[in-house]
């Protein structure tokens, strides 16, 4: 579904990402993790066609994202790390406005149901500026789902969302994956990494130290002489390792 090959990104002649090679299949929830400044958001924004790659190729559903940008965009639902909403407008107005930006038009009722699905209840006519931080996150997520995108690119969508809602949203995302959506999910939440993601990639200094399932990660760690009692420790070791001296070993 998503095929990334030798992708690189420079900011003012400084390399921030790459070379990155990655393949994500339909129905996967690919967890993207790594320390702050690793390049996760940079990678996601390139996939979302917000910024353009300095080198390399990205193919989505058989389409090159730089050459067929117009055809790719309707496939993508993008949740940027920063909240992208009009603060002075209500939830309803925001949903309606973003609903105008997409090709597949939705009725007001469908939009309201979408807000329910992300656990944003009873705030339909509330101004966004009056919502709590977590509620804004929920709406931020709902907006990206308006056009039923096949590919979801979610940049820390559940930061600051209460546990109960996060649980429900995770359920929703799993359901979307079962329905055949392809999801790339950036998170710093250990539970989301272990419970939600089907596969993970650890990004550091712009390159992947590891891509694969947690079980694979555990096996590889053992090969390198590390012992991990549980998944949390596996992730801990994955992130702690500094592999910058050599090409990623796994």
């Amino acid at each position, binding site marked *: 579904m998503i095929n990334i090959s030798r992708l690189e990104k420079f900011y003012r002649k400084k390399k921030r990402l790459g070379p990155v090679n990655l393949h994500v299949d339909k129905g996967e929830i690919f967890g993207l993790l790594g320390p702050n400044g690793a390049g996760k958001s940079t990678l996601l924004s390139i996939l*979302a066609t*917000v910024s353009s790659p300095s080198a390399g190729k990205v193919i989505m559903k058989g389409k090159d994202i730089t050459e067929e940008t117009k055809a790719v965009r309707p496939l993508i639902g*993008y949740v*940027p790390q*920063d*909240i*992208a909403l009009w603060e002075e407008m209500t939830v309803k107005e925001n949903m309606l*406005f973003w609903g*105008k*930006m997409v090709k597949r038009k939705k009725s007001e009722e469908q939009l309201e149901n979408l807000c329910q699905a992300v656990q944003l209840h009873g705030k339909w006519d509330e101004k966004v500026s009056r919502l709590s931080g977590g509620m804004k996150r929920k709406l931020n997520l709902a907006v990206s789902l308006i056009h039923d995108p096949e590919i979801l690119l979610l940049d820390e969508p559940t930061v600051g969302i209460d546990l109960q809602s996060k649980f429900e949203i995770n359920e929703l995302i799993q359901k979307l994956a079962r329905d055949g959506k392809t999801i790339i999910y950036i998170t710093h939440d250990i539970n989301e990494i272990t419970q939600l993601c089907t596969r993970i990639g650890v990004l550091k200094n712009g390159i992947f130290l590891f891509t694969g399932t947690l079980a694979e990660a555990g096996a590889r760690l053992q090969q390198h002489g590390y012992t991990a009692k549980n998944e949390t420790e596996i992730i801990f070791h994955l992130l702690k390792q500094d592999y910058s001296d050599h090409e990623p070993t796994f």
Partner: protein
Amino acid sequence: MGIYYEKWKQLMRKPVTWLLFLMPIAASVGFGMLFTKQQTELTIPIVIVDEDQSSTSDAVIQGLKSQTGLTVKEMPASAAKKQLLQGEVDSVFIIKKHFQTELRKGKRDGLIELWTSPSSVAAGIVREIAASEIIKQTSAAKAANKVVSLYKQKYEDQGERSEIWQQAYDYTMDQWQPEPLMTIQYKIGSDKRQDTNKEKATLLFSPYLGLWSFFTMLSCFIFSDWAVKERWTIFPRIRASSIGLPAYLSQCAAAHLIIQLIQAGFAFVVFRYLNVINGGIVVFSVMAVFVLFSTVIGLLLAVFHTHAGPFYLTALSTALLFALFGGSFFPAGELFSFIQKLSEMFPQTALAAAENKDRLTDPLVWESVFAMAAVVLISWPLIVWKAGREYD
């Protein structure tokens, strides 16, 4: 189209929109009135003593009264003298007895006596005005005298024939209407370019329209702050959506433009109602182009800023620069001749020219309109490019 309408509705609900909508018209009418009021207060007081009390002396007085810049009072000689000594009036003009009869005989000198205070500023001007009035009167009288004498010669008539005299006199006086001398356009034998420059130098800009141009530009600039505010939040997501950033930018700009166009229409109607501008639909058309120009320049400034504070500062100073050099507040070109050429390149010239000429086909008007349109066309791709660039 949908986005344009949504944005428009969204804007209409914001109080700041209404503030920016009303600001140009309220400020230009408010300051305009202050400005023109001060102008009338700056007149020079003079006194006329009319000893002749004839229709001709009255015509001279009316002529002086119609001059802006002078306040003309009539009073007896004794009172006038007192006022002059107290420094309350600038100068006193005494129209001597038999002014009309002497004048009609073709005599010009010594008919008006002039008293001035040592600090008089008006004597020269008033003397000129009075002289031109007297020349008018004497020329007409001489012409009438001639007509009557020719008539008498031809028909060997010895009667008074005052009705013929009067008709000839009135006819000649009519030739001076509506205003003598000053409105004749002098075309001195030189190349065309210089000719138009001469005309440009005398463009009179209604203070109302001048102030409107400044406040409208400022309003359009501030109105463009959405492009600064949405830059890091909304724009990235727009880029990822089907509509794309260029379409979003143009539709949002259109929504803002429509509101400012309504503002311009409203201002135009108010100005016409108050009778403070000349010109008709041409002036409005140029106002509309000016609004388009200001909106696009506002956006251009906005996409080159990352924070609202510095943007407002740049917006204000840019609007001020445009107003100063373009002549919104006073004709800049008349102060410093080297600014003259520069001033002609500013969009305010189009407004002033439209008000004076009231023809789109006048080179002064269409050249400026064309220049504004060109700037808009060049700026737009730059705006789209810059707005999208920051993420690359």
